[in-house]
């Protein structure tokens, strides 16, 4: 079958070009014949398609058939291997994502302690989540944290990337050092820094888990220390992609450093800025490990009978509602919180992408 492709003769096209009416007539005749001769198979459908190029004899038509590109050399044999190529990922994806996701949405409308025993309660869980003071509080706390960390991380990462793309000695070593914290996991990072912060703060008779302000800035420092290197790599890639002649042109036109920076460099690295702000914003909202390890949400106070953890980010709040709360409504409420959390993060990410994408320069 496939060998036909090798000795494929060029299809004569004169008939089509010279006498379109004639070929049309021939076409209808042929299609009639084809229909009557054999049942409709994939090959026949393809023949219909091929006919528009008017192949005079059945032999050439057949040869032409195998030259219609990927469909007949690759796609059809590949489809038979569906179970090998696509099935493993699809089934794992169904177990690891699709099913838990659907079940999660369903459970957010239920009161439950275990998955097998649920009672449908409608949107009660969502109402309960909104009236939960600790949730509302941790939402604003997370928003503040995400914005502050976004600004600090991106400004510093961009500055470091600018410095490293100048031709200076040892820029590779610097890059290696700045990227290193990224490989250390959130839990280890949290304990590492809590040791350092407590080492400093114990001199003043306090500790990171006793003071909300220290907890906030401590977490900002930890996250910045970790993520600046990552964003820096992305910025460096963006800066290196700026066409050299553009910078030269700016120089020749007499632009000073800041003009070059704001009019040439920043517009050109907008794609990198888009990605980095997107990543740091969503990372800020999703942060869990570092929060858990550094302060675990402490200090804790009670306001109007509700225990409020002062440095608890949204992800940790949801986790605590799920696993550290004995109320019979807790799990349903937590699942409702999780659904809202997911919608929030996804929406914020998409809005942010939309805003910065608009500012990208078309090249």
């Amino acid at each position, binding site marked *: 079958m*496939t060998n036909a492709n*090798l000795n494929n003769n060029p299809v004569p096209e004169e008939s089509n070009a010279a006498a379109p009416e004639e070929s049309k007539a021939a076409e209808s005749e042929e299609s009639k014949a084809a229909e009557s001769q054999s049942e409709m198979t994939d090959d026949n459908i393809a023949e219909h398609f091929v006919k528009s190029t008017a192949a005079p004899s059945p032999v050439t038509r057949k040869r032409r058939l195998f030259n219609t*590109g990927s469909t007949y*050399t690759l796609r059809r044999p*590949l489809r038979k*291997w569906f179970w090998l*190529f*696509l099935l*493993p*990922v699809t089934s794992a*994806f169904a177990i*690891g*994502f699709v*099913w*838990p*996701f659907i*079940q*999660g949405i369903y459970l957010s409308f239920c009161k439950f302690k275990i*998955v097998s025993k649920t009672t449908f309660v409608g949107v009660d869980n969502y109402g309960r989540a909104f009236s939960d003071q600790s949730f509302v509080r941790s939402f604003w706390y997370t928003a503040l944290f995400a914005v502050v960390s976004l600004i600090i991380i991106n400004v510093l990462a961009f500055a*470091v990337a600018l410095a490293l793309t*100048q*031709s200076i*000695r*040892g820029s590779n070593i*610097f890059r*290696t*050092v*700045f*990227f*290193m914290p990224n*490989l250390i*996991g*959130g*839990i*280890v990072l949290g*304990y*590492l820094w809590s*040791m*350092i912060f*407590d*080492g400093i703060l*114990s001199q003043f008779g306090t500790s990171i888990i006793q003071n909300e302000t220290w907890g906030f800035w401590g977490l900002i420092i930890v996250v910045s220390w970790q993520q600046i290197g990552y964003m820096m*790599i992305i910025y460096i*890639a963006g800066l290196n992609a700026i066409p050299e002649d553009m910078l030269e042109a700016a120089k020749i036109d007499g632009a000073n450093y800041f003009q070059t920076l704001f009019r040439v460099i920043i517009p050109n690295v907008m794609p990198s800025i888009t*990605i980095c702000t997107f*990543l740091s914003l969503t990372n800020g909202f*999703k942060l*869990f*490990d570092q929060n*858990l*390890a550094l302060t675990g949400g402490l200090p804790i106070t009670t306001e109007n009978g509700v225990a409020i953890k002062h440095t608890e980010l949204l992800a940790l709040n949801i*986790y605590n509602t*799920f696993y550290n709360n004995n109320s019979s409504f807790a799990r349903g409420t*937590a699942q409702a*919180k*999780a659904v809202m959390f*997911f919608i929030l*993060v*996804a929406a914020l990410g*998409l809005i942010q992408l939309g805003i910065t994408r608009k500012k990208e320069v078309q090249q």
Partner: protein
Amino acid sequence: MAKAKNDMEFSEAKKVITVNDIDPNILKDAQKKHRTKKGLVLTIILSIISLVYVFPVAAVLINSFKTNTYVKTDTFRLPINDAQHENIWAGFNNFTKGMTFGDYPFINSVINSLIITLISAALIVICTSMAAWYIARVNSIFCKIIYYLCVFSMVVTLQMVMYTLSKTADTLKLNTPWTIPIVYLGFGAGLAIFMFVGFVKSIPIEIEEAAAIDGCGPVRTFFQVVFPMLRPTMISVGILEIMWIWNDYLLPYLVLDINKYRTIPIHIQYLKGSYGQVDLGATMALLLLSIIPIIIFYLFCQKYIIKGVAAGAVKG
């Protein structure tokens, strides 16, 4: 040959002075001067920042050799005995103590982490690259649905599915280090599929067609023709997955049978969380032991890691 000679003569005849004709040393000197002026200041500033960057890791190193009581009070002092700090130097006691700390040996956690990370990363790279090739080449409606679901899964937070996922994994007995890779494959497929499909679409299909015409079946075409071409993306995906899985805490914590199997992050969290007042020196030793393998891995694969991150970010 003759043509090249002609060209040479032609350019000789024109004799226009270009940048290449200037003595290269002059340019180099100019660059060097420029370098020393501005570069020196930058280098000094960056060196100071680097020291600040390395400092936390160095602090862990120092404190892992200190006895318990001094870690909190004299965090930044070198572990050298003197009149005021008589037994601040703990030697390797912290390490031997740390290995058997709590009710779970640390070495088991290391082994579990290794098993989970390596199997999961390998499974993700192989399975998703195959799936991505199928999706990109067959491109049926079903393939498109899978592809967009994968893209969608990238923005879904773990909190959204953590409870139901852990229950599903429990029911299907996916709670051992040998089976948790399936969960990782499912939950982590999004980014990998996305990166692979993007790359496969940039490969000219003619190469695969040629292989098919020469009599290669789809399986052979994939493993002998497509697989080698996918190598750069595979390295990127592999690195990103390894970095994620090795450091992941919440997913294995919820999915694994925690009394039997722990990973390094879970182990560290248990030390601090469950035992209340623990030996800080030993904890520091364990922190150091969990950082060292990553740093070694990083120093060896640095080039690939940085490339992988850049590639992953551009695609994402």
